[in-house]
């Protein structure tokens, strides 16, 4: 099974979701991210989904779940790089993205995380 790498930069965990990930692989990423937050005490998560061209309800739910879980463990989640079609699909699904912060690209997401993590 393909693994999704998680990179730690200071207090932030960075991961990139690729197109065509299997549900099982995304679930594994969720678990590994949670474990990483627990072990490293990371305070922010940056998820880049700029290469993801379509989302289904499963992936949409999981993004929201990852953010909600991270929130409970004291970390902010910023999802970056949503493509227009992905944004429209998520809105049509009517998903509550309450715990999720979004940014246009990784650069803006990083700036947002820095603001969120500022003392």
């Amino acid at each position, binding site marked *: 099974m393909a693994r999704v790498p998680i990179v730690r930069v200071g207090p932030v965990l960075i991961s990139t979701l690729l197109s065509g990930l299997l549900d099982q692989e995304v679930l594994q990423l969720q678990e590994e991210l949670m474990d990483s937050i627990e072990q490293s005490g990371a305070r922010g998560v940056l998820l880049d989904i700029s290469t993801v061209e379509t989302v289904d309800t499963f992936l949409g739910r999981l993004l929201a779940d990852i953010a909600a879980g991270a929130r409970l463990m004291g970390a902010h989640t910023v999802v970056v790089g949503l493509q227009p079609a992905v944004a*429209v699909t998520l809105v049509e699904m009517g998903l509550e993205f309450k715990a999720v912060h979004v940014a*246009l690209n990784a650069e803006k997401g990083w700036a947002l995380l820095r603001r969120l993590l500022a003392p």
Partner: protein
Amino acid sequence: MAEQAMPAQRAVTIEEQRRTIDELETPVLQVWDSVLALPIVGSLDTARAQRMTEALLEAISSTGSDVVILDITGVPVVDTATAKHLLETVSAAKLMGAEVMLVGIVTRTALTLVHLDIDLSSVITRTTMAKGMELAFARLGLEVVRRAGSGPAHPASDGGGPL
């Protein structure tokens, strides 16, 4: 069939008018660095709202804009369906990382929204595009000041504050 009975000339005219209306679709204007504005004129049906949202999202992506101002001054009636379309556009733009403001909420529109019990609490609303721009500037950390000794001379404009 009514369509078959219609004289060919009339059908052509209608087709031409339809094309003109399509061309009058909502343009996405870049009004400032990182600020996009959408002046929406006329009623908003599902198809139009979809095209508008697509154009907006593409523009956010290509210009890297941080703020979007939706101006509904030119929308005659904001009913439940229109409000739903607007909220969907707002949500989609937010997912692209943009902050969205809904301006042009005139008294009539505000009253309709209240009567229809439409919840717009998730959106920043203002009365005019000018107020929206003011807020956009504030969000971007910009300030508009009048240079000393310039600008219109009539007293009404002195010390008028921002816009």
